[in-house]
């Protein structure tokens, strides 16, 4: 299992478009993928789940991947966050 802490760096926060990008990227992998924020932990492959987190600009979340391709999954998702989803 891999865990990785991330701070939301795009101004609009994790709204519908980033949520869709995350879920689409994550569903390509076989590993289980969860995102945690404070005491909430959701399935990172479910769009409603990801949106439920309502992770705003500046808040921190944790990516949790578990499975055969966990490294690749975390790498791609982390890159998505780093690119600010192509936003400001």
């Amino acid at each position, binding site marked *: 299992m891999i865990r990785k802490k991330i701070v939301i760096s795009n*101004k609009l*926060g994790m*709204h*519908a478009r980033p949520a869709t990008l995350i879920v689409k990227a994550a*569903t390509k992998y076989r590993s289980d993928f969860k995102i945690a924020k404070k005491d909430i932990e959701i399935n990172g492959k479910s*769009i409603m789940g990801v949106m439920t987190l309502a992770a*705003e600009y*500046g808040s921190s979340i944790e990516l949790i991947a578990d499975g055969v391709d966990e490294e690749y999954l975390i790498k791609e998702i982390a890159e998505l966050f780093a690119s600010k989803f192509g936003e400001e």
Partner: protein
Amino acid sequence: MKKISVKDFFEEKKKDFSLSLITQPKTINRDITSEFLNRPGLAFAGYFERFSYQRIQVLGETEITYLQSLSDEVLYNNIKEVFVYDIPCLIVAKGLSVPAQMEFLANEMNIPILCSRLATDKLFNDLRRYLAEFFAPSKTIHATLVDIYGVGILLTGKSGIGKSECALDLVERGQRLVTDDAVRITMIDDLLIGRSTNDFGHFMEVRGVGLIDVAKMFGIQAVRRNKRIDLQIELMPWKDNMDYERLGLSENFVEILGVRIPIIYLPVSPGKNVSVIIEVVALNYILKRYGYDAAKEYTNKLQDELNKKAKLRNSAVVKNDIEM
């Protein structure tokens, strides 16, 4: 170019338009090639600029009264000048009779004159509707057309994907079947109208069972003859890495006969209840038409929440508060 001969038109629509033939039968072999109608009043008065002679010419009381007011000589010349043009036919409304000279010239010059008992306005409108439909662009496609809560849904997808079975399930749930397997689509007034390619009734082939008669089996309320097509649902086999629509914020469109309608790509897998999803698609379509878009509503709420929280965090950081 589509066309119908005056003879076929007369035989076919004699009853609907209460038509009778005034001229001799030999005059009737002309072709109708235009979906429009013309009132030839100005032509009979000698004005031929932009005279739409290729259209069916409809004569009402105005034209007939005008012709009757002319002296014999003028009448003869004016009619002759009009009949030089290649006119498909004249239709006189209200059961009015035409001047004897007109009938004579029409027989001589081979122009058919029909008489209708309908009032001019009614004849004009009915004729126009009939011609618009006859000349409308159309095509036949491999699909199943169903009416779900009044929304016309065209089900497409490869053979064996389960279009017919899906339609059957929908019919059992109280929805209506228009036609299975082949849909004849006609474009009328920028709308797509779908119907069966024949008049045999609502038959359907169910794999492993054979032919069934849906109207007999489920009752007349389970079927309808034609329906406006509002959207298309393409059934496709489930693929793991396929990019399916998740939120419904973006819409895909498909063009049929130049008309754009929304299309939804619906993955099908064994044990999945496609009928319920199709009903949901129809209901969501109705909600959107009434101005409520669930995807927009939810994502707007989310964005508001995100903005509010970001603002709060910002002011907390400014006050040198602890991390949230």
